[in-house]
């Protein structure tokens, strides 16, 4: 009988460990959380908010603003530009150099937009966790971890 080797699990982690620990962690919100929540509500009333966030008019929850800049390729000239939210050209590249400049500009745009949107999404998540926008019993593992780090919550289990 020929031996047949099974490829096995390889480098993939074993499954079946259940819910990751931060998600099942029980926390209790502290006084610092309530004070911070009040402060954020006051700031919201004053209109002093993070520029990358939009506050929902109906719920007061925060969401990341859409990225304002766009990457526009000019098919006629073969060049490309980054257009700002105010519709003004911020940066341009010509087709010279076998399109290397255009590619460089595209990579810059992708990198900038990704990092900006990541930061905005994280800010929105943090804002919702600390302002009460996310109900305490619906906090994600990451949000619980943040609240614990900020001293706005304590572990109870």
């Amino acid at each position, binding site marked *: 009988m020929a031996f047949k080797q099974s490829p096995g699990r390889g480098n993939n982690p074993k499954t079946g460990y259940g819910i990751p620990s931060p998600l099942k962690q029980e926390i209790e919100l502290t006084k610092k959380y309530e004070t911070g*929540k009040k402060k954020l*509500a006051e700031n*919201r*009333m004053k209109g002093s908010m993070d520029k990358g966030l939009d*506050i*929902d*008019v*109906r*719920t*007061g*929850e925060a*969401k990341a603003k859409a990225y304002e800049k766009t990457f526009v390729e000019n098919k006629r000239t073969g060049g490309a530009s980054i257009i700002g939210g105010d519709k003004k050209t911020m940066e341009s590249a010509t087709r010279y150099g076998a399109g290397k400049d255009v590619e460089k500009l595209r990579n810059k745009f992708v990198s900038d937009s990704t990092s900006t949107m990541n930061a905005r999404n994280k800010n929105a998540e943090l804002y*919702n966790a600390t*302002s*009460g*926008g*996310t*109900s*305490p019993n*619906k906090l994600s593992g990451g949000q619980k971890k943040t609240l614990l780090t900020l001293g706005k919550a304590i572990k109870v289990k």
Partner: protein
Amino acid sequence: MKNVLVILLCLVFFNANAQKMTSGFLEGVWTSRGESTEITFKKTDKNKLVISEFSSISGTELTVLRYKIKKDNLYIESLFEPNNFQSILKFIIIDENTMVADVISDYPGQVIYKRILNDKTN
């Protein structure tokens, strides 16, 4: 004179065909396309409205405190309990499947709602 008559006739025609804000008209599911909330209106046997509203961001349900239909406008006052955020929506009909809501809250603004499912057909 002829033009005036045509305009008058048009006005009468448009008024006669204008949508009225009724429980029957509202019945169905309305979406803000991820902008704000999703709302379901259901008409009971006694012609009353049952309103359920959910946040498009988190899916958390809002508590509808009261509603009123007045002069072809619908007003909904609700509370978002997690952060005690209270606001009033004033709906104006644009067409059969579109309404614009003026939001009166700490963050006033406008939200466009589109009908996505008509319960009347069920």
